């Protein structure tokens, strides 16, 4: 049933329907509304069989989740930005141990300078942490991806991060069909851990591994992530059969079929991009949009299939690597070696990405004037001011 609901609340209600047993969290904007709502659900008794732990740091949040998951509980946490970095060591540990923890990342910039607004620097900084990373385009996707995430994580024994744009999605009120309890229960069976701390069958988890087997451990993690690609597509079909609505698990193409240029992006900016593409299409410009839901694992085949014969790819990046350029673009260049590739860095630290600016950038692309790396709406006045600061 559709209801007008804040994104954070929609996610909290959805997570609750997934029947987590341990939730631990540490507050950071813009994640707070999610965990506040979950805390209230646990405290009021509406979310039965679940413990909520108020931890002293994000490092502890992920560590409590690690212990809880290893002891056989479905574990959930949420964070953003500095919080995600603060748990970095534990993130790699959770994936290395194969613990199916689900975490929401309410994407936010990383300081310094400190900035609470939305971009993707936080999640991108952890792209190699061994977690599956899914990016939500809108709040319906944010809610639905959590249900998928728990199922996927537990089937493959690997942690999953659901990324949703801070404020733009977390604090936006829009119509969302929050997954119902009965359907959620049908889709998501109780957690059956692959390995559990149990006095009746003692196991050693987290032992030391040297050169003799470390490569193999990593290789198997890679194979597991690749297996997730096929499994996500199957689960998305099952999701649609259960909840009666589509879910794009890997990529979501829009007007790509006959496009000469395809813009690739992740997250909520896809909405603006689609509007821009509609404007340009109306003017006869052959352009399309490809949204990536899955960034880790990187859905190479799905991307190739969706982009088709388009000869030019423009990657809209909400984060970037200083000294190099685009992060997503680097992966795309590997998947699509034969295309003209442009990186447009946009919307850092919450700067709005407008249709006007996007139209301009795409017009430049079509007239052959778009540089390989562009910073959208760079304020020359500020740059000159910075130069004039006496040293």
């Amino acid at each position, binding site marked *: 049933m559709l209801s007008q609901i804040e994104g954070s609340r929609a996610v909290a209600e959805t997570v609750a329907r997934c029947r987590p047993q341990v939730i631990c969290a540490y507050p950071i904007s813009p994640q707070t509304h999610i965990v506040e709502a979950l805390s209230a659900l646990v405290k009021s008794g509406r979310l039965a069989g679940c413990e909520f732990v108020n931890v002293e740091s994000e490092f502890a949040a992920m560590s409590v989740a690690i212990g809880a998951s290893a*002891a056989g509980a479905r574990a959930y946490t949420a964070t953003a930005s500095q919080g995600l970095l603060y748990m970095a060591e534990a993130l790699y540990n959770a994936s290395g141990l194969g613990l199916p923890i689900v975490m929401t990342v309410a994407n936010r910039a990383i300081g310094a300078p400190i900035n609470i607004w939305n971009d993707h620097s936080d999640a991108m900084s952890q792209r190699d942490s061994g977690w599956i990373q899914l990016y939500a385009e809108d709040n319906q996707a944010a809610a639905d991806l959590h249900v998928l995430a728990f199922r996927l994580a537990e089937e493959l024994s690997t942690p999953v991060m659901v990324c949703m744009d801070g404020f733009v999605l977390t604090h936006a009120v829009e119509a969302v069909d929050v997954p119902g309890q009965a359907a959620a229960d049908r889709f998501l069976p109780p957690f059956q851990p692959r390995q559990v701390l149990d006095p009746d069958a003692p196991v050693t988890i987290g032992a030391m591994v040297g050169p003799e087997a470390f490569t193999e451990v990593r290789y198997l993690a890679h194979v597991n992530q690749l297996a997730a690609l096929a499994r996500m597509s199957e689960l998305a079909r099952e999701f649609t059969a259960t909840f009666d609505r589509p879910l794009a698990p890997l990529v979501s193409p829009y007007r790509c079929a006959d496009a000469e240029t395809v813009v690739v992006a992740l997250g909520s900016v896809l909405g603006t991009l689609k509007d821009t593409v509609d404007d340009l299409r109306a003017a006869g410009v052959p352009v399309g949009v490809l949204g990536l839901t899955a960034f880790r694992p990187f859905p190479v085949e799905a991307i190739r299939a969706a982009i088709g014969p388009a000869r030019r790819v423009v990657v809209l990046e909400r984060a970037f690597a200083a000294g190099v350029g685009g992060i997503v673009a680097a992966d795309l260049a590997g998947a699509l070696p034969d295309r003209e590739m442009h990186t447009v860095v946009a919307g850092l630290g919450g700067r709005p990405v407008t249709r006007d600016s996007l139209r301009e950038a795409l017009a430049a692309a079509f007239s052959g004037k778009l540089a390989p790396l562009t910073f959208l709406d760079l304020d020359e006045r500020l740059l000159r001011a910075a130069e004039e600061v006496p040293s």
Partner: protein
Amino acid sequence: MSERVRFFQTGSFAVGNRLLPLDARTVQSDPSRSNSLTSGHRACRGCGEALGARYVLDAAMRATGGRLVTVNATGCLEVFSTPYPETSWRVPWLHSLFGNAPAVASGVATALKARGRTDIRVLGQGGDGGTVDIGFGCLSGMFERGDDVLFVCYDNQGYMNTGVQRSGATPPAARTSTTQAVGPEPGNVFGQGKSAPLIAMAHEIPYVATATIADLHDLESKVERAMGFHGARYLHVLVPCPLGWGGDAAQTVRIARLAVESGLFPVFEAERGEVTAVSPIRHRVPVEEYLRPQARFRHLFEPERRADVIDRLQAGADRNIERFGLLRAEERFGPPLGEGS
């Protein structure tokens, strides 16, 4: 609970053990002990930490009827017990990171609670570095929330696994590989470091105790006592490290005893923030007797005797004796348990 028996002879406890009724004997004297940390691990000869962990775990297993899950911080204990593809652990055992063992233990306890498995108890363990330094935030969080975990710190007064560097538990004047015995004030500086047990007590958790591997019976009974409480509990065990301290591997237990008898390491119990019992010093020794056999203090005796530094260390021991009433223990807390009624 039956009263604890203490042994005061300086020889082997095994002798005393045989004189006891069966139910008062140590866990280790029982052939059906759980052997939680079994043989074959790679600890150095004479490792106090291996000895301490073995007694702690078996006592915890007995106290919980074998319903125990353990969480381990990175450090010697973790490394020497789990070289791939082997393990010395016969209990469910989880190692995550160096600095998060108390939080991981909290997670395990919370999961067991959520799953209705409160018959299973949780024991976290780590070295002094993992406990009093890098894991301290997680430890304090676990304490203040009152999570149902017994956390055991095996204090060998340094980062041994990485090659004997200084930790927040390294005593003043001790030589480590980051507080070298050079310069005008050789070894670790005075006026630094912290007492994790006293800070634990400030959280007013149900039970805090210190112990050493010199009195294994006392160690076992403290584990048992800790397991009698629910909520956050803390046990801080002094475990000499022959490699890091530069001592004879055969003298580990003796060194631990001298730490107690000199007053440098006070052995006590506390409940809800109040000291409830101290182990009295029976044969007080000057700190010099404890310092001399250890290479990490050699610079206090060679090339010449540093009376000034030894006096400062003695003053620290005197302060402990005064503060905890280690010589007047019987006046403050009655006769030691096991004597009298």
